[in-house]
């Protein structure tokens, strides 16, 4: 017989509640079950109104982020058994610092606005015709930005970042890492445009380097690193703009180099 564990889940419905209240559900623990399996068990067998997001169940679509025992986790990649001793309780809550729509579902439109704000697409001065073939990019150049391209937009890093909590206008870890993903791409010429958006108190300078975003990232993207490197670049650009009047044009110089 399988062990059991009690999940404590905050329930909130705007139609019924003013604020969330906890409900408890006892679920069996099978050794192959992840936290998401337990939620599905509740939804299918006990209470069909339990509300949460999920899709791929293989840690790649980014839907199922939750606070599991106080930590931001992908619930499809977190084994139930790692929290179970018989009779134990496990808290599963919506991701921290986000407005809550219902139960475990957080509001994401603000996050999407931030993603778009950093211009996460390849910016080119001019576009040669397709017939000229691919832009060449060596494996080393690919390596430069590879890590930052791994983000699945699960928003665990936002739930880990106290700056996001204290200052909701902060662009946040994933979006800045995504900007770096394009900045570091040898095919891109838009670093200057993005710097204009991000060298800002609500952009990179908002970050106080808590470093939690990197620790909780399930895909090892290291947003904290991306932001600090961005700061370094911004600071150097600023210094250069004093040292040489050409300094400000620094990014344009890079563009020309990229065109060669």
């Amino acid at each position: 017989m399988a062990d059991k564990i009690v999940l404590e889940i905050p329930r909130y419905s705007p139609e019924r509640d003013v604020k969330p209240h906890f409900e408890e559900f006892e679920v069996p623990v099978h050794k192959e079950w992840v936290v998401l399996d337990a939620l599905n068990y509740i939804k299918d067998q006990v209470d069909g109104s339990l509300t949460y997001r999920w899709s791929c169940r293989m840690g790649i679509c980014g839907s199922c982020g939750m606070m599991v025992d106080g930590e931001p986790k992908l619930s499809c990649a977190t084994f139930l058994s790692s929290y179970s001793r018989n009779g134990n309780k496990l808290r599963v809550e919506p991701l921290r610092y986000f407005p809550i729509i219902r139960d475990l579902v957080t509001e994401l439109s603000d996050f999407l606005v931030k993603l778009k704000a950093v211009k996460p697409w390849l910016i080119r001065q001019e576009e040669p015709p397709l017939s000229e073939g691919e832009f060449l990019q060596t494996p080393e150049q690919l390596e430069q930005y590879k890590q930052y391209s791994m983000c699945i937009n699960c928003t665990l890093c936002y739930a880990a970042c106290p700056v996001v909590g204290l200052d909701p206008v902060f662009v946040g870890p994933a979006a800045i890492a995504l900007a770096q993903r394009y900045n570091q791409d040898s095919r891109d010429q838009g670093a200057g445009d993005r710097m204009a958006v991000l060298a800002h108190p609500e952009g990179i300078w908002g970050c106080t380097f808590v470093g939690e975003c990197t620790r909780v990232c399930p895909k090892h993207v290291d947003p904290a690193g991306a932001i600090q490197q961005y700061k370094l670049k911004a600071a150097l650009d600023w210094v250069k703009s004093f040292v040489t009047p050409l300094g400000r044009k620094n990014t344009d110089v890079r563009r020309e180099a990229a065109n060669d």
Partner: protein
Amino acid sequence: MFAVKQPTTKVLPLYQEFHPRWYRPRVSVYWWLGQWQYLKFILREISSVFVAVFVVITLLQLRALRAGPEAYARFQHWLQSPIALAINGISLFFVLFHTITWFNLAPRAMAVRFRGKRLPEILIAAPNYVVWALVSAGVTWLVLR
């Protein structure tokens, strides 16, 4: 339209059908107490105050030096008082904490690449410690010789 009892009709004053009201949890003033990583972060931030304390003590020392041997002796005497010892002890702790946490974070902020591969973190953190050790040794030698 439908005479059926439905949850949506016994609305709370705040809920308007089709206009969900999001619940916005408030961040507690004590958010940093709940988790060791956050506490560590706050301690690291606070540590800068104690770096400043060290600087102030050094400035006071300089002032005492300028004011003559008597003042300097008084200052040295004060340094031996329990309060001064405590302040210095705590400051030392925080300054060490400050140094070590920042050195450990250095690899994050600097992505040094060698032949296309990012250098391992230890190779970036270690030189900081080496320089620290060398400078400390130099200072020790200067002071104790």
